[in-house]
């Protein structure tokens, strides 16, 4: 299957000038490696869609058959990563409250403009999960924002399980938690019963051995999750939910990442103590009113979590201009005191680490996928354009060929 996907991708990528099988060298004015220091006058050697070498231009030997992309007046950085989103799918919240067996793979809409725009903004990996409204909401898929079909877009199918501690309308928190515990307990009981049945090795009348009992496919996902083989993405709208998530993960021994609501900064120390990684809400900076003192308080979540020592990724949404872009979220963090390198990492390497996929992408390092963004200037400058996006070694976005951008940049109508 993987070979088929790979072959299909090669065909798609071939349309963009070269394929992932080519040897490519990107010459860059500046390389923001993210994992190490920036490299002025650098070059990146790409083979088979992966980074083979990165360094000063004079240190990189350019093979005779290499295709060279001259970005010597540009800045090259790893693609931005969206570590949690529910966009790009048709209705992300299943109405039934416990559906671990469903997957966004079946809901992803490859022609959703969200993917096209993600690419335009230099996002090269997206984790598309079910929404916040379903208790055990199903599995998410890691995608590349390029391809004609969901198969072509998929990097990792069913990468994690989404859970939500947000009670449904009319339900109390205690009832919600009781329902989650019951799901877990019933699953553990089922697994125990299954083991016992296997051990019994039932023999039919007549002395013939029967095949061992198989697991109900509806239960497989949950079994993987409680067996520690599938990570949970647990949405915690309130700080109290963070503590409940920690309690649940300890009792039922599952691995998890937290997708936090904005008030959850109050639980930052508890999160740090457990060494948990979080995905911040898109509204990372918000005002509160101190009613008694008539004072407006600005809460800056990335700064609070950074100072607490928590590794975080940033979400984007489409509610306002700035929050729809990863680079702008990083710039906002810098504006409010987060070190620049941490801000850029949180949208790249740290996001990859939150996804447990940092061995594949998130920085410009040997062995990683060549997911690169070619920028006309500094990554956090509003004046900078994404000039090209390279996905697994192939150019999949070119600004001068972006028809939508061309249209909104027209000076007059009717042209």
């Amino acid at each position: 299957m993987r070979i088929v996907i790979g072959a299909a991708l090669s065909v798609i990528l071939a349309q963009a000038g070269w394929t992932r099988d080519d040897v490519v060298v990107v010459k860059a004015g500046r390389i923001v490696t993210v994992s190490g220091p920036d490299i002025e006058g650098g070059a990146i050697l790409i083979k088979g869609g992966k980074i083979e070498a990165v360094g000063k231009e004079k240190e990189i030997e350019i093979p005779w058959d290499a295709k060279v992309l001259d970005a010597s007046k540009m800045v090259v950085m790893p693609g931005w990563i969206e570590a949690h989103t529910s966009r790009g799918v048709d209705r992300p919240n299943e109405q039934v409250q416990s559906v671990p067996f469903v997957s966004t793979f079946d809901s992803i809409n490859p022609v959703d403009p969200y993917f096209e725009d993600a690419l335009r903004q230099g996002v090269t990996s997206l984790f598309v999960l079910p929404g916040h409204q379903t208790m055990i909401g199903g599995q998410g898929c890691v995608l590349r924002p390029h391809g004609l079909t969901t198969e072509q877009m998929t990097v990792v199918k069913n990468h994690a399980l989404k859970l939500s501690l947000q009670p449904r309308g009319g339900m109390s928190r205690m009832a919600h938690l009781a329902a989650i515990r019951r799901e877990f307990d019933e699953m553990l009981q089922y697994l125990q019963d299954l083991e016992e049945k296997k051990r019994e090795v039932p023999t039919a009348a007549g002395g013939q051995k029967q095949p061992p009992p198989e697991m109900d496919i509806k239960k497989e996902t949950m079994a993987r999750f409680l067996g520690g083989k599938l990570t949970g993405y647990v949405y915690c709208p309130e700080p109290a939910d963070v503590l409940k998530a920690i309690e649940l993960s300890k009792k039922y021994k599952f691995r998890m990442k937290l997708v936090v609501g904005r008030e959850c900064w109050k639980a930052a120390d508890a999160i740090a103590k457990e060494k948990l990684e979080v995905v911040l809400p898109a509204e990372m900076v918000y005002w509160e009113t101190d009613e008694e003192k008539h004072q407006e308080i600005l809460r800056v979540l990335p700064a609070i979590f950074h100072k607490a020592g928590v590794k975080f990724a940033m979400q984007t949404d489409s509610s306002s201009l700035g929050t729809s872009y990863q680079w702008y979220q990083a710039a906002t963090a810098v504006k409010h005191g987060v070190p620049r390198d941490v801000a850029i990492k949180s949208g790249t390497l740290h996001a990859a680490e939150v996804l447990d996929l940092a061995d594949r992408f998130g920085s410009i390092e040997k062995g990683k996928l060549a997911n690169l963004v070619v920028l006309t200037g500094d990554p956090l400058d509003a004046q900078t354009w994404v000039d090209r996006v390279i996905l697994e070694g192939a150019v999949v976005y070119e600004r001068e060929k972006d028809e939508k951008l061309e249209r909104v940049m027209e000076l007059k109508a009717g042209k």
Partner: protein
Amino acid sequence: MRALALLAGVLALHSSVDGQASEGGPRGDVIAVKAGRVITVSGEEIKDGVILIEDGKITKVGAGLEIPAGAQIIDASAQVVMPGIVDGSTDLGVEGSSNEETDEIVPHVRILDSLNLRQPALQRALQGGVTTAYVGPGNRSVIGGLGSVVKTSGRSLQEAVVREDVALKAAMGSGPSWGNFPPRGMPPTSFYARRPTTRMGVVWEFRKAFFEARAYKEEAPARKDPAREVLVKALERKVPVRVAASRAGDIETAVRLADEFGLAISIEEAQEAYRHAELLAKKRVAVFLRPTYQTSTLYGAEGSEVRFTTFTALLAAGVPTALLAQTGVEGEGALAMAAFAVKYGATRAQALRAITLTPAELLGVAERVGSLEAGKDADLLFLSGDPLDVTSRIERVMVGGKVAAGRKIVEH
């Protein structure tokens, strides 16, 4: 009383300054701001500039100015100083709805009567750099009432109001008709049977109101009608009409109505104004543009087709254009809009002017705010870096020579 004393204490604390020129006796009313860079907006940028302030007004701006003995010195040598932002269209501080919906024509209602200066939104806007704002009625009535210009820092209306009743609000498009029902099965005067229900109905209500106002003016009755008095002022061009219109057709309609009744109009929202740049220039209609700079969509308010180049197209045609921040977005919305405007083709000077001096001029308050010039209010923003750099932060806001109090930023 004690609360007042405490407040005064806090204000005094926040207004405290960094130093005092050594010679002479203290002159508390003279402040000298030493800035790493001064963006005056009206003139050239000044490196290592000095801004002299007396009684809340700017007296001098320049490089190497002599600092009067005893003046309080604010050392902003590591900062960039620019004039406070003037937001050309907001509903800041409006308690409840900004739409009076009992009638589709309510020219005599005044937004000032709905203003609550303790609304958090005003304080947030102030900390985001908006020192002056036009506050006006919303888009739900054909003619929605009078808007005013206020300082976001004011503690009393008297202190806050810069200019009262600067514009009469009108709206084209679907705003006034959306969700309305014909009076079927109800008495025609029913509150629930709100009219109009279509775009043509909106235009008719507008025309009817001004026909009647014209007749009223000719009649000159002894008993005054407050609503028609306002419309007569509009007919006499004493009050400009601010028309909310997003789509090209609605903008054209607004211009046609202005011609019909001899009104002085400006267009607000104006996402499709690029289609009528020449017309607007010819008719001397100014624009308060609320741009849509999101690359995820080609469509803006009312299904308008957006162009990122609308701002530059309007300027190129000679249309005075102010940039508006996004509605409902707190913080440095206007600065972000200016940064994006530059990305999409505007010059630095054009973009910065469009959020300060241009709206001040269009609102008729440029003798007081909008730029750093002698004689104007000392409304200053102190930034950590260039205002068009989205990583720069506003570190201090001064209004009328006083550092705005009440801010607390928690990052740890």
